[in-house]
């Protein structure tokens, strides 16, 4: 889609609220919080929930829900961008930085796969979740995260398209090679940078 065809009579809805330079190409701003997922919403009781770091690590790390919630957490306000074209500005989350979860982990891995209840997976370069770029979020807008939005906890990686912010996340598997996740084997981009429009294979 490089040389645009002009659509006769199309004007579109211009934005005049100043959000413009925060909305990546092809996105539009919404005030709603749409829900997108490929299957039924999983419901895992908190006493059966845990979060693990597995794969290329010196030793496995595991937290129960209580242990996870006792970790230092941060309040995060970020813009999020869904590959289905909506962007939502200034979303407010609370979560544990992935830096905290990986603190002290010795690894030769350069990638990871986030794995989730319901079988969903997504792949990320390790450096994209370090240095304050990613969290495991458990609250949205001051409330516990709704199951349809990924509760009890979801990954939050706001600088990439939102499918990378895996809902119902239960752990990270560190890998030395990149292992494409659920959407990444189903036609979606391996990396998913919204500012470069990396929606699909070949972008």
């Amino acid at each position, binding site marked *: *889609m490089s040389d*645009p*065809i*002009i*659509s*006769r*009579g*199309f*004007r*579109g*809805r*211009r934005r005049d609220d100043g959000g413009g330079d925060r909305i990546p*190409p*092809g996105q*539009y701003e*919404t005030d*709603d919080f*749409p*829900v*997108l*997922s*490929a*299957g*039924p*919403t*999983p419901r895992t009781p908190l006493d059966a929930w845990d979060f693990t770091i597995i794969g290329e690590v010196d030793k496995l790390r595991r937290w129960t829900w209580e242990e996870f919630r006792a970790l230092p957490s941060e309040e995060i306000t970020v813009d999020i961008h869904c590959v*289905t*074209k*909506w962007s939502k500005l200034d979303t407010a989350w609370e979560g544990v930085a992935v830096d905290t979860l990986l603190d002290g982990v010795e690894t030769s891995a350069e990638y990871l796969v986030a794995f989730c209840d*319901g*079988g969903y997976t997504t792949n990320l370069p390790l450096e994209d979740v370090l240095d304050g770029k990613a969290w495991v979020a458990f609250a949205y807008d001051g409330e516990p995260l709704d199951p*349809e939005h990924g509760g009890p906890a979801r990954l939050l990686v706001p600088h990439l398209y939102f499918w990378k912010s895996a809902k119902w996340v239960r752990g990270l598997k560190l890998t030395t090679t990149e292992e494409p996740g*659920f*959407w990444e*084997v*189903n*036609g979606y981009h391996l990396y998913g940078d919204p500012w470069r429009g990396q*929606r*699909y294979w070949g972008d």
Partner: protein
Amino acid sequence: MLDVVPETARVKTLRLDVPDWPGHLPGQHVDVRLTAEDGYQAQRSYSIASPPDRPLELTVELIEDGEVSPYLTEELRTGDRFELRGPVGGYFVWEPSRGGPLFLVAGGSGVVPFRAMLLQLASTGADVHATLLHSSRSWEDVIYRDELTELADAEIKVVHTLTRSQPEGWDGYARRVDSEMLTEAGPPPDARPHVYVCGPTPFVETVANALVGLGHDPATVRTERFGPTGG
């Protein structure tokens, strides 16, 4: 665009002639990109309504305060051109070789990808039993009503529920989809059906939860939700 077929008061099917269309699977979608004269662009995704062996068709529901759907349903004329990207998506798809039974549950315009699946099933004559349970507000709002009624035969079963108003003498379902309706209308979990649910988010949440509650394996239930913002 070749021409426009009205489906209901708010829904139209656009028949398109797409140069070099690579083919698609029922259930996939396309991205539509519109460009204004000053370069302003807007993109939205639409499910493909046609089976692979026919010209590409998109069925678009008018969202009154939307940005793209009013243009596609009210402004676009035969011969006009716009940009398409696709086909996209490899998960919410079904083709006859995947077998059955097939259980499709649609809320409103969520029926669009199922039309592609059922038309392909009917034209290939595959030995697959399929059930479509379609929830609409009223009889007038049922998208593809006559077309899908004609498809119904020993292999393809079409069940409607009308949630807001019903024609006189209506003896079908007249409520939102619930567990009892899913049990009566569809194949049992033991039959290991391929289940597809498509519609607005609250509809899909309710139906998918009910299906899991009835004992359907979550891994066999594929969902496609469209959010309240649409476009």
